[in-house]
């Protein structure tokens, strides 16, 4: 069930009225739990079974950690279970095809059969939510949720189920434990955040997608200007697609009185690659920071270890996004940029470079990294980049309106970063903005609901 559909609106409306009409807190929790399973099962009736497996397994592991005192053993079993589960669905095909390629290279005639496995939507998200909770419990950061229903609700809470944000137990569980019916102001704020997300997805991301898909679909056909603009279009598409989804998820949760964590903070205004990861998909980057980078030693054991830890974290972050080498390459490039950024950051010339120039340079670098993310393979990405520099100039085929909107988006980022748009937080301005956004969506944008890019992860 996609957020931007009539089906979801109907689902939400019924659910909201039921939620408001139930006086008992536990009753409301079970209602939302049931709704979450219906929501997930709407994509495919088998999906809730996968979800239930992770929920039940981690509930038992947490229970055993507490009751037996063998915390380390059950932590390892829980993580192993999660990783095997994730690998079976997400990486089995990737692993098999790589083994087969190795067999080809070594001249071995044997081939493994390519598995045809259903990849449940949002599997990486709910597994990471659950895994993070188990690790937090292991380190004593959170208490175990004894109520199975509430534990299940934490992992399966429908707004964040398909594509995050990857909630932390410390942030979400207490809200679920003391859940009231929500206030009218929550509904108002939630509605605004939702409309903003809807606009980002339908009016912006889906527009940029038309051009990005055209260029990336056959890059050899286009000149350098189109290739550059195609990369830029994808840069904005993925941002608006994902942050639009996050806004909608946060807006829906807010309507029910729950505050989900922020996932984006003007990422294209980052002044370094490290800064970028503090602004882009914050719930994932902070997850990797807290549960991988820091346990690996972080920056505490010298520069070399820090660089190694950064590279491992970024490579795995790339792999998290997709079971393909281009995602690994994308992670590698981000890691390398981050390490290099740290190294050259010590030079005086970098220190005295005005921050606005650093923002522009980082933005250009990020645009290039997205080429690896969007291309079908690493080789395609390299030939795309080669095309930018080698293809002759031809008048670009990007519509002028798209170019104007893209420029406005970038300018909006600058103004917002420097606090020039604070007046937009006023309720009157929000009201006007909401009406304009809805009218624009209704009149000018497409009425076809398209999937979100991050659903595949």
């Amino acid at each position: 069930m996609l957020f931007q559909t009539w089906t979801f609106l109907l689902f939400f409306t019924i659910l909201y009225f039921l939620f408001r009409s139930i006086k008992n807190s536990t009753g409301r929790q079970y209602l939302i739990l049931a709704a979450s399973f219906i929501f997930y099962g709407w994509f495919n009736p088998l999906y809730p079974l996968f979800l239930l497996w992770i929920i039940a397994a981690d509930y038992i592991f947490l229970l055993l950690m507490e009751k037996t005192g063998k915390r380390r053993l059950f932590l390892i079993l829980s993580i192993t279970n999660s990783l095997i589960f994730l690998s079976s669905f997400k990486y089995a095909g990737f692993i098999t095809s790589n083994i087969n390629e190795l067999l080809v290279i070594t001249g071995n005639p044997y081939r493994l059969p390519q598995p045809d496995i259903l990849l449940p939507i949002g599997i990486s998200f709910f597994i990471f939510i659950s895994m993070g909770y188990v690790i937090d419990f292991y380190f004593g950061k959170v208490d175990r949720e004894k109520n199975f229903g509430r534990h299940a609700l934490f992992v399966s809470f429908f707004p964040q189920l398909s594509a995050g944000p990857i909630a932390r137990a410390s942030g979400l569980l207490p809200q679920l434990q003391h859940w009231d019916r929500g206030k009218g102001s929550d509904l108002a704020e939630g509605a605004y955040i939702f409309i903003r997300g809807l606009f980002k997805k339908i009016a912006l991301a889906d527009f940029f997608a038309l051009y990005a898909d055209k260029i990336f679909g056959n890059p050899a056909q286009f000149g350098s200007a189109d290739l550059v603009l195609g990369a830029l279009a994808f840069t904005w598409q993925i941002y608006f697609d994902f942050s639009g989804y996050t806004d909608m998820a946060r807006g829906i949760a807010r309507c029910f009185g729950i505050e989900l964590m922020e996932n984006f903070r003007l990422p294209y205004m980052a002044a370094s690659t490290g800064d970028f990861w503090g602004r882009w998909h914050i719930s994932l980057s902070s997850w990797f920071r807290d549960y991988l980078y820091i346990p690996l030693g972080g920056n505490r054991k010298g520069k070399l270890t820090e660089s190694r830890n950064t590279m491992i974290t970024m490579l795995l972050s790339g792999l998290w996004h997709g079971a393909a080498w281009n995602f690994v390459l994308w992670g590698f490039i981000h890691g390398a940029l981050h390490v290099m950024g740290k190294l050259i950051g010590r030079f005086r010339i970098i220190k005295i470079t005005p921050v606005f120039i650093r923002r522009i340079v980082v933005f250009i670098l990020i645009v290039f990294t997205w080429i690896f993310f969007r291309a079908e393979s690493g080789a395609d990405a390299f030939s795309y980049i080669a095309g930018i520099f080698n293809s002759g100039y031809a008048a670009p085929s990007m519509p002028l309106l798209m170019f104007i909107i893209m420029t406005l988006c970038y300018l909006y980022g600058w103004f917002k970063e420097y606090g020039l748009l604070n007046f937009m937080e006023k309720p009157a301005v929000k009201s006007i903005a909401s009406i304009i956004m809805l009218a624009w969506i209704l009149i000018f944008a497409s009425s076809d609901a398209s999937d979100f890019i991050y659903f595949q992860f």
Partner: protein
Amino acid sequence: MKRLKYLINVTASIIVMAIAMPVLFPLTGDQFFTSDYRLPYNLGEDYFLYQKYAGSVAGYNTIPVIGDSVIWGHYTSGTDTLTAHLNRRQDIADFSNMGIDGIHPAVMYGLAENYCRALTNKKIIIGINLLWMSSPRHDLTGGKNSEINHRGLLPQFTEIIPAYNPSFEERLSFVIKRNTSFFLWIDHLRLTKFRGKNLYRWCMDNPGENTLQFFNPDTRIYELPEPMDASKFPLQDAQWVKTEKSLQWRYTLKTLKLLKEQGNDILAIITPFNRYMLTEESANQLGLIVNGIRDNLASEGITAVIPEIPPKEEFADSSHPTGKGYRTIAENLLENSEFKKFIKH
């Protein structure tokens, strides 16, 4: 409190906009409902316009003729349709062409149910085109068919149609759209002003064009399709669906009853089918179906008029007459006593 104000502001503005816009700007195109008016081809799915047209016809002293492309006049200009030929006779009643290209009986029911509510206490003529019973595929009782026209007007949740299997979302959006004047108006705006495309798609298709051109009115003219050569009509063995099993016939009957319940006086015209394209056996079956339909309608208190089959050369395909064919049918109807009785002032 301020946030609540936001919610109230937005909700109120949306409601006001949704109610006010279709009222303040009822017709954004340059349409005029003249006597030989018919819905422009490219506005065939503009149900907002159709509803306005129905409302306008309801106020005139004319007899609306509702039907599919045979009534609309697929192979002819607006001045050569059946209603246009009937209108040439100044001494009789005026007729309004309320046909829509590609509309089949199951859809016609949706059209009548949703957009012909204004037609009450009038004389109404319904064109029945038996093409829709000429095979299970046409009848929508065959396998899944992804080429159904006007699918949004089909019953979405009240009946399972074998050929129609959309997603729940599609069904729901159709139901919401056809019951919300504002969404119909948005479609109307897009179809009349924006060539039926959304702004983004238009920009992609015309990257070099000035975006403001998107807002220019659609000036496309309907290009008449080439009729088939009568000397080369292929002989067909139509797989007629029996009346009692036909979904299309059931919906034809439902449409007639619905309009009758609105206080209208109904006359059905079984538009001529090109028998020259049928094998003898198939033509005989058609004859039986036509007789059955006439008797069936009579039992419902509805008169059915069956015009004579025009000459072979006056057919453009299996069910559509040429302009000349329409003239022949019109002349034939004007000699028909039951027809004359029905249209009498």
